[in-house]
């Protein structure tokens, strides 16, 4: 039963680890088990949540986007420049999201139409977009953002800021959208079996490009949230975020080979990556312990998960072919099929 459950819900193991983590922290310090803490960690992980949604979509199509950090920076800089040039806040954010969409579509076109491998294509655009950031900003920080813009991440109703509510809605929409709509399912179909998806009538190229485009919009949103949170825009805005986004999604059970994963899982992964920070504070450790702990936990989860999955697969395959292995093969079966089956079973045992 447990095996079947884990096979179906990869995100369950991360949820378990997070609950465990909070239980331990609760034992150390009772005040930690409060709604305030949860809200605080949630507020700190907004950017990673948004990026993880995008990464889940792209990875579902068996793609990978390492340029999201640069898209974040580009969108943040565009929004900042427009706002300081006197544009209204919604218009500036809108343009930033469009910039993100365009960047994402370029990635998608490279991968889908020009058949460049995803990591190489987005590696190139990672440098390209980051260079545009420096060109646009002229190499200096963008400061003096309007107060109204910074207020978007200040706590509002029920202790959540405007962006926090927006991200919550996005998470819900994306989770159910990917699971229960035709478009969402088609992304997983493309990632699982590209040719098969084409044969059942899915517009493979368009779906892939759309996934990258949406990922670009989400990365742009992450950039806007980043700018609003810290109140100025450095040239390095978003650097290194791509690895954190991919790590969150992988931690939450999204497969890099495409075809599996849920937004809920990726979000749990992102929440986990952020909550490591709070643990450090509680354990009175310096901030520089963050990466080594994140890396160690990531590896332990990945290797355990890989081992469990291998064992589960072997067990399921064994059950599937058991009837062909144990009783002597029925007499009326043709020799050819027997040969075929024994081939299959020997593979299944492996």
């Amino acid at each position, binding site marked *: 039963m447990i095996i079947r459950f884990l096979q179906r819900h990869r995100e369950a193991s991360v949820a378990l680890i997070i609950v465990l983590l909070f239980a331990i922290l609760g034992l150390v310090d009772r005040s930690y088990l409060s709604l305030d803490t949860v809200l605080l960690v949630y507020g700190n992980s907004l950017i990673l949540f948004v990026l993880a949604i995008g990464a889940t979509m792209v990875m579902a199509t068996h793609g990978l986007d390492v340029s999201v950090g640069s898209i974040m920076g580009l969108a943040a800089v565009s929004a900042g420049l427009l706002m300081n040039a006197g544009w209204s806040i919604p218009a500036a954010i809108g343009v930033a999201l469009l910039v993100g969409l365009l960047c994402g579509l370029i990635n998608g076109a490279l991968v889908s139409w020009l058949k460049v491998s995803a990591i190489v294509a987005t590696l190139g655009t*990672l*440098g390209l977009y980051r260079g545009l950031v420096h060109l646009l900003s002229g190499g200096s920080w963008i400061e003096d953002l309007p107060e109204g813009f910074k207020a978007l991440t200040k706590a509002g109703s029920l202790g959540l800021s405007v962006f926090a509510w927006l991200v919550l809605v996005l998470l819900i929409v994306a989770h159910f959208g990917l699971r229960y709509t035709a478009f969402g399912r088609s992304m997983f179909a493309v990632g699982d079996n590209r040719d098969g998806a084409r044969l059942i009538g899915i517009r493979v190229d368009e779906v892939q490009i759309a996934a990258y485009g949406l990922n670009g919009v989400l990365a742009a949103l992450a950039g806007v949230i980043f700018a609003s949170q810290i109140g100025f825009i450095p040239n390095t805005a978003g650097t290194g975020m791509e690895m954190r986004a991919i790590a969150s999604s992988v931690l939450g059970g999204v497969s890099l080979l495409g075809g599996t994963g849920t937004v809920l899982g990726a979000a749990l992964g992102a929440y986990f990556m952020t909550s490591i920070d709070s643990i450090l504070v509680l354990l009175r450790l310096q901030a520089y*312990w963050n*990466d080594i702990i*994140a*890396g160690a936990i990531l590896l332990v989860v990945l*290797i355990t998960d890989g081992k469990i999955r291998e064992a589960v697969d072997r067990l399921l395959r064994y059950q599937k072919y058991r009837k062909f292995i144990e009783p002597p093969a029925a007499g009326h079966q043709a020799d050819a099929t027997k040969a075929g089956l024994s081939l299959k079973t020997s593979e299944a045992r492996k």
Partner: protein
Amino acid sequence: MKLHPALKRWESVLALLLVAEILLFGAINPVFLQPSMLLYATSDFIHIGITALALTLVIITGGIDLSLGSVMGLSAITLGILWVGGVDIWVAAVASLAVGTLAGVFNAVAIHLSKVNPLVITLGTGFLFGGAALVLSGLAGATGYEGISNFDPAFVNLANLEVLGLPLPLALFLVLTVAFMALLHRTRFGRYVYLIGQNPRAAAYAGTPVFRTLVVAYALTGLMAALSGLILASYFGSARSDFGATALMPAITAVVLGGTSIYGGSGTILGTALAALLVGYLQTGLQLVGVSSHVSSALSGGLLVIVVALRSLTEMGRVWVQHRRVLRNVAAE
């Protein structure tokens, strides 16, 4: 159009591009053509080339190593910590090379044990090694920008030594290029590397020592990354934990631009070496004609995209022409 087979190779295109690039920058700014300029400019980027050589092996096996940037920082910090602790600088250098090699072995073992995609595993180990470097430098009380400095002058001078008129890092790069060419193209190990990349299952059935080959490939990458970290420490006269942070993407760029398939199974060391020089000189040249270093990195990103897209397009065109020829022959019969 009949071309000599050697001219059809990707390496020849790269070599031509490299010459054209140097001449073009030389035409804009003659300073660029001075031999000392051409030789000493390499010190800024040659560590990327050295790492890319070993990374080529890993990518040909169908794997990838995203942790090499962290290994660079880790080896530099190891050197710094040991030096501060009073260890002889040469012993410390050997120790940091050993740490880098161990990091590579750790990668291979983790990939082998978990059967998880190397991309994911090395992403995790990248956090781990980078985190270890941060912790070590934090414990030693080194600040982020200063790092650990005041090394033995003999070690700091190493990066400025000349061997046969070449700066030592460049000479090292050339020697390593030849060594890796021999290793990949002339030994049984090299053939195993290609076989594993072409078809891991067939390789396993053929009795290829898959695990051992992978361990050596990843260990060499760790070793070269550590060596690059030491070269940087000597060049800058200080050791910082974030040394390799910007080296990972250019290293992968050099390998891919050099003609190695990111899916594994094909590629050459010479291509990687030429591509590393091509990208490196592009950066230096652009800076010399007055383009800021950030914009020049954008241009090398653009170059990667264009070159790879063009290669992909010519491949698609070739397949299309081939199909047409076959179809026409069939129709004629």
